[in-house]
């Protein structure tokens, strides 16, 4: 009788353990899937486009002179400028994806998404910027 009870308790314990493991796995799977879905939603996908322009195109337009520190603090801009310079086509340009927050920050620091956006200058090269919404 005692032995039968013990066996039943062991079976219940094993089932409970398996149940807990399955529950943990299910929560992990559902939660990670939900987070992956939600983090993909960050408003409209946006792109920062930079194009190399000649000094003669500036025509007294405002110019922001960028420093190495600026590029370190704005990796999206750094990446766009780097890609534009390595583009063999003429005119040299590049588009890089960015998030809504990055667009806001670049707008407030370099005016990229404003009417009559200023030109940017880095290392003697001038750039025109545009923001593309998809």
């Amino acid at each position, binding site marked *: 009788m005692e032995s039968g009870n013990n066996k039943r308790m062991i079976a219940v314990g094993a089932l409970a353990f398996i149940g807990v493991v399955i529950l*943990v796995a299910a*929560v992990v799977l559902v939660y990670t899937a939900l987070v992956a879905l939600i983090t993909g939603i960050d408003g409209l996908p946006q792109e920062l486009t930079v194009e190399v322009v000649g000094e003669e195109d500036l025509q007294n337009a405002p110019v922001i002179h960028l420093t190495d520190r*600026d590029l370190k*603090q704005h990796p999206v801009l750094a990446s766009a400028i780097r890609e534009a310079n390595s583009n063999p086509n003429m005119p040299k340009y590049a588009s890089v994806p960015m998030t809504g927050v990055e667009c806001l*920050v670049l707008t*407030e620091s370099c005016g990229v998404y404003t009417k009559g956006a200023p030109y940017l200058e880095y290392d003697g090269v001038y750039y025109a910027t545009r923001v593309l919404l998809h």
Partner: protein
Amino acid sequence: MEEDRKPEPGNQFKTVGLILACVLAGIVAVALGFMLADALILYAYESSGGQPMLYVMERVEPGENVVVRLTEKDFVDHPALDAVIRGEERNPSAWEWGSSDRRVIGGAQVSYAESRALQDAYGPDRETWVYPHLEYEGAYYMVVTTWP
């Protein structure tokens, strides 16, 4: 007959105990699942090579927003915030007060965990999505973080 009925209350206690144990185990399993999933997600992001950033914007006036006074504890808890507001990462943009009454005063690279911690501490209200304004030495700041 009475002798047979005696074990019943004991069995009932056992059944109730078993159900309670199962419920408790279920709650612990769900909590453990969330913690494990959270740790996995963070680990995956940290290994992705992405570069989350902390940016601090200064506002001329706080407007109607909630104002939170920054203390030394905030700076100790969040060294990146300290570096941007009063340290080596302070680098006000050349586009001074550009198109509105706010300007970016600097940014710093942070880990994903720190990006989330900053968002939780100084991010927008979950219902109204209005950012609190942080006041330090008479200036008002807004903290935004990226999660690339």
